[in-house]
């Protein structure tokens, strides 16, 4: 029942707001859906289950512990985006019709991501990943500018080809596992040793390319900076904070087959290579970026690279992955939402056009600086912890030499990002347009940063146990 609620309610409310185009309905749809998601997530956290569902539904959708974790992260990000959207509407003076379209698309997008997280069947997961592309493409083109059309086209085209290749991978996997004759993850895990290893590896290569395109891992990242910089800021936050994670969960679930078939050295090698390549791509580009939203997009590539490196480290890696997913999503959401404020205040995405932010709007300025500190991994923010644990794991697993490029890339990225952010925050060029922002333009980021600080300073014991139990379950 709870699963059907989170899957069907967004569609219903979205349709309702699309049809009625009424202000009250719009607000209820936009703020009600995250509220329901929060309620459902907390019900699962407190082990309250209301298990009434039609049989076919509970067979194809299930909330396991890792799914619950990703769903909770998504819910936090989506709630902040929903609140920020109120300010976004006000900044642009959208008509009720445009608001309804926006809400309709964003709710469908969230529904598709929920489907990815809860799917228990590989092909179903694929269908929902495809659905995320279709729904989010329209959101990227929401402001109807020439450049956003270009970004949306590149996004749709590149991701469609990627996802098509992932489908080839699924077909090859079903060839490899003829004796199992099922694509449910549980069946695949249980009988992983029966799968023909040669075909499993080929199938994985295709699925990796397909979902990797969606994650935006280098070298399949071409669409990511364009889409993230051209989308409306709340949508960028949603793309970076949740879409990348959900696609990552897809890879994660497929990779489990390798763990059960004792072939993880193959997938780990791929993860380690692409992870470091992503760090490199980010560090090469970050020094010459002129556009601050693109800078954030490249930082997403970097963080996905960190996730892949952590995933390749085996058992200890799972803990780092889960911590990093949470830390990256929250800090990146905060950054993208704040970048929406800056875009509104200065009407420009160029780093050079923005200066003296702290004087012009101190709250935005401080949010911008603190969020940047959170993403580059200043202690006590949790990104620091995950980076530290990666280095420690590399060290203990005899990959000490890899810490040298790791530190090198991280130093360059940290320098590049902080240089841009400080140039924007300080300076003396006065620029006298006075746009006022409402409190909904600050509130979500403040809450996100407080959550991050609490986790970073003192990780709640329940959460630690929960993450450990997931890590234990999987290995």
């Amino acid at each position, binding site marked *: 029942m709870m699963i059907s609620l989170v899957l069907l309610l967004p569609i219903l409310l979205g349709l309702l707001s699309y049809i009625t185009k009424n202000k009250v309905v719009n607000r209820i749809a936009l703020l009600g859906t995250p509220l329901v998601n929060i309620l459902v997530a907390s019900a699962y956290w407190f082990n309250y289950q209301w298990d009434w569902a039609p049989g076919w539904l509970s067979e194809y959708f299930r909330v396991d512990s890792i799914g619950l974790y990703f769903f909770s992260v998504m819910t936090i990000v989506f709630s902040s985006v929903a609140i920020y959207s109120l300010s976004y509407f006000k900044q642009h003076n959208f008509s009720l019709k445009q608001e309804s379209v926006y809400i309709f698309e964003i709710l469908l997008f969230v529904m598709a991501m929920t489907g990815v997280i809860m799917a228990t069947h590989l092909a179903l997961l694929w269908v929902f990943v495809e659905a995320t592309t279709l729904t989010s493409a329209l959101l990227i083109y929401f402001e109807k500018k*020439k450049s956003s059309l270009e970004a949306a086209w590149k996004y749709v085209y590149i991701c469609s080809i990627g996802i*098509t290749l992932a489908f080839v991978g699924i*077909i090859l996997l079903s*060839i490899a596992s003829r004796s199992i004759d099922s694509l449910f993850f549980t069946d695949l895990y249980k009988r992983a040793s029966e799968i023909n290893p040669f075909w499993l590896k080929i199938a994985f290569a295709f699925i990796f390319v397909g979902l990797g395109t969606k994650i935006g891992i280098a070298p399949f990242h071409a669409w990511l900076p364009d889409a993230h910089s051209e989308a409306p800021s709340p949508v960028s936050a949603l793309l970076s904070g949740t879409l990348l994670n959900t696609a990552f969960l897809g890879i994660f679930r497929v990779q489990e087959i390798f763990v059960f078939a004792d072939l993880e050295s193959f997938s780990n090698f791929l993860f380690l290579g692409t992870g470091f390549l992503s760090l490199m791509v980010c560090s090469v580009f970050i020094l010459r970026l002129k556009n601050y939203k693109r800078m954030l997009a490249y930082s997403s590539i970097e963080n996905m690279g960190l996730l892949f490196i952590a995933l390749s480290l085996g058992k200890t890696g799972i803990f780092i992955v889960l911590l990093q997913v949470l830390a990256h999503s929250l800090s990146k959401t905060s950054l993208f939402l704040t970048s929406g404020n800056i875009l509104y205040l200065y009407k420009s995405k160029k780093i050079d056009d923005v200066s003296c932010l702290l004087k012009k709007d101190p709250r935005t300025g401080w949010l911008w600086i603190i969020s940047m500190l959170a993403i580059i991994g200043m202690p006590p923010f949790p990104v620091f912890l995950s980076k530290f644990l990666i280095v420690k794991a590399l060290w203990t697993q005899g990959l000490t030499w890899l810490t040298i490029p790791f530190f090198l890339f991280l130093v360059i990225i940290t320098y590049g990002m902080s240089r841009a952010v400080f140039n924007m925050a300080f300076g003396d060029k006065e620029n006298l347009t006075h746009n006022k922002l409402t409190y909904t333009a600050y509130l979500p980021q403040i809450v996100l940063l407080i959550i991050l600080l609490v986790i970073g300073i003192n990780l709640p014991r329940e959460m630690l146990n929960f993450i450990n139990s997931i890590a234990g379950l999987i290995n």
Partner: protein
Amino acid sequence: MTDILIILLGTTMLYVFAVSRIEAYVKTLAFQGVLLFLLVIIDIKQIYWFNIAFLGIETLAIKAIIIPYFLLKVIRKNEIVREVEPFITQFYSLLIGVLIFIFGFIAAFWASKTNTGIKPLYFGTSLVLIIASLFLIVNRKKIITHILCYLMLENGIFLLSLSVANEMPMLVNIGVLLDFFVGVYLFAIFFNKIHEMYDGGHIDVLTELKD
């Protein structure tokens, strides 16, 4: 009979390598749709009749009639006649096409030895269709050609999924879904928008966003 159909399907790809008129691409696409329709009704026996009926209607109606008709309309409305000079000339791309064929079939015969019940002809042709369309996408410049080659890529994948149709009919149906949504719904919308905004659907105009 199925062998002949599959070989014909492969040959259409070589034809695409050689031509540059956009309408010829669309007609090839429609022809591929008809061939896939015949393959579905001849070759698949072990699944429910309504599944076959669904696939048959899908291949004939959507792949062979609706999508090509729609694309032809777009092409005539926008007066796109032929592909501009591709990055690699016609002759060399035909040569590369032949190489792709050789590679595809060697790979398929080699793979059929791994004892997974792969039919080399099916597998090889679908591999050729997939790789060749990817090559064409990289090599051609018009956005409409990109869409057409993407649809050919889908045909290749459809053929591949037919080889597991008897065990997992669901996979084939999902492939159909992809076709429908991506092919018609989104590409058509975005293509028309790009044509309106940029005046001439040519990928060289899409260079505003870069680092």
